[in-house]
């Protein structure tokens, strides 16, 4: 009787959850970054990121709860802290991050919307709801700074947790490397930037190529750095796995000739990393060579954003599925 997993216990719902948590973390981090740099030049990116950040994660958390064997008992996660369980730490981290992201969203709402959120203190407030404004402009400015500073490390933690969840398991050699946390972290940041890039490309009148021009310049520059970081992780990932124990080395067969080869090399690396890197390099090279301004191109900007988003999804798909097929290997054949 042969034994081993015949079905994938973690499927598409978990893939979507890891993916959306990464996008949310990436968007929040970008928003927090844009809050602090440029002296207000990138306010629109900060606002865009703040307004969008909680929603992918909200969807992902729904998926996560639905994936449980007993979804109605998900609250059991929050009556205990298990220090050795990445999932327990991650659940708390995600809840905290969600809270901060929601506060950030409220702080970045355009004023007329923000004023709809009211916490009346007295009867007069209730009677005259339209005049009472709970948040002064100064409080909002300060609040944004504080929330960005608190939320930035939390967002990095959430992004890293999605990798640690898989990477901290010795029983699955394909996952069991510290580089998985970094890979998922930089991929999360990259997909967050790409989501904003895509929205920025779709924003405003299509006829005006200079709409959000310097914001797009910043996003493209960030994405180039992040994609390069991913390459700096993927290359040593392959080298280390190949030179590690036999179980690790053979787990690479899953993506080198095995069932996930085409998805990883064609989907994740070519379509999701190389192609967007080429497009973004083309947009940026006049600046890098000091020959002129960035080539603003709404179509290319949107396309590279879309490709990075597809690549990020496929990355999580490949890792979640392939990792479940990897095992310790029994004694060596002679």
């Amino acid at each position, binding site marked *: *009787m*042969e*034994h*081993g*997993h015949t079905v994938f*216990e*973690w499927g598409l719902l978990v893939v979507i959850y890891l993916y959306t948590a990464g996008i949310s973390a990436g968007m929040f981090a970008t928003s927090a970054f844009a809050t602090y740099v440029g002296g207000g030049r990138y306010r629109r990116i900060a606002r865009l990121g703040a307004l969008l950040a909680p929603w992918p994660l909200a969807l992902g958390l729904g998926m996560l709860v639905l*994936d*449980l*064997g*007993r979804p109605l*008992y*998900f609250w*059991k*996660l929050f*009556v*205990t802290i*298990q220090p*050795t*369980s*990445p*999932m*327990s730490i991650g*659940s708390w981290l995600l809840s905290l991050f969600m809270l901060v992201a929601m506060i950030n969203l409220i702080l970045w709402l355009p004023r007329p919307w923000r004023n709809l959120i009211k916490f009346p203190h007295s009867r007069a407030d209730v009677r005259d709801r339209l005049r009472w404004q709970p948040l002064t402009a100064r409080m909002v400015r300060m609040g944004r700074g504080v929330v960005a500073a608190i939320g930035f490390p939390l967002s990095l933690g959430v992004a890293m947790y999605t990798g640690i*969840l*898989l990477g*901290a*398991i*010795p*029983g*699955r050699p394909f996952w069991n490397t510290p580089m998985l946390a970094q890979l998922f972290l930089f991929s999360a940041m990259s997909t967050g930037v790409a989501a904003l890039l895509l929205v920025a490309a779709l924003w405003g009148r299509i006829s005006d190529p200079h709409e959000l021009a310097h914001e797009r310049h910043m996003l493209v520059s960030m994405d180039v750095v992040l994609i390069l970081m991913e390459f700096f992780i993927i290359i040593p990932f392959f080298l280390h796995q190949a030179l590690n*124990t036999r179980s690790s080395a053979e787990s690479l067969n899953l993506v080198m000739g095995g069932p996930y080869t085409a998805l990883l090399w064609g989907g994740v690396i070519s379509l999701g990393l190389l192609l967007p890197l080429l497009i973004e390099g083309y947009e940026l090279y006049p600046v890098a060579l000091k020959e002129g301004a960035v080539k603003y191109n709404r179509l290319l900007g949107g396309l590279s954003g879309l490709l990075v988003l597809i690549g990020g999804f496929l990355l999580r798909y490949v890792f979640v599925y392939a*990792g*479940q097929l990897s*095992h*310790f290997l*029994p*004694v*060596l*054949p*002679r």
Partner: protein
Amino acid sequence: MTTNLKGMLTHIEPPKPNPQAGRRWAFVIEPDRCIDCEACMVACSVENQVPVGHHRNWIAHREKGKFPYLSLHFEPENCHHCSNPPCEMVCPTGATFRREDGLVLINYDDCIGCRYCMMACPYDARYFDEDRGVVDKCTFCVHRLDAGQPPACVETCIGGARHFGDINDPESEVAKLLARHEVYVRYAEAGTGPAIFYIMD
């Protein structure tokens, strides 16, 4: 898969009985007495009402030697009730716990069915019970142990390949077997400290 066991497996230093430390339930298995009849699997399924399509124990096949000197070799296996169980470490609600006597058990009220433990177990000893929405596995027949009986698979084993007992009791059958034989464990490199010892044949 062709496997040559002699010289390829890391034998481990068999644990010495430690009567002061309290009970430590363990299996000692003689693979050369196993005939792959799968009676243990049937006994387990009946005893524990295991859902159709899942098993709490199984028999791994290994081919020994090199053509033309080949032989088939059976390793009966179930949950290893590790001293350092990865499933217990990753459980986010603390539903999986380790009892004083070494049994790794599940508190089904606390299990939410996230299946992280199934990812963590290098032996794939756990299965997901779809009807109850919780993860389940071999308990070393804890209900029988607490009533003073051996696990169902041990009682039914026709070839006498499965031995069960307290390795901290120097007078027990398993402690004597461990003292007399060279033993190995599955995936010693995982650092799990499994409590199923296989006698080298």
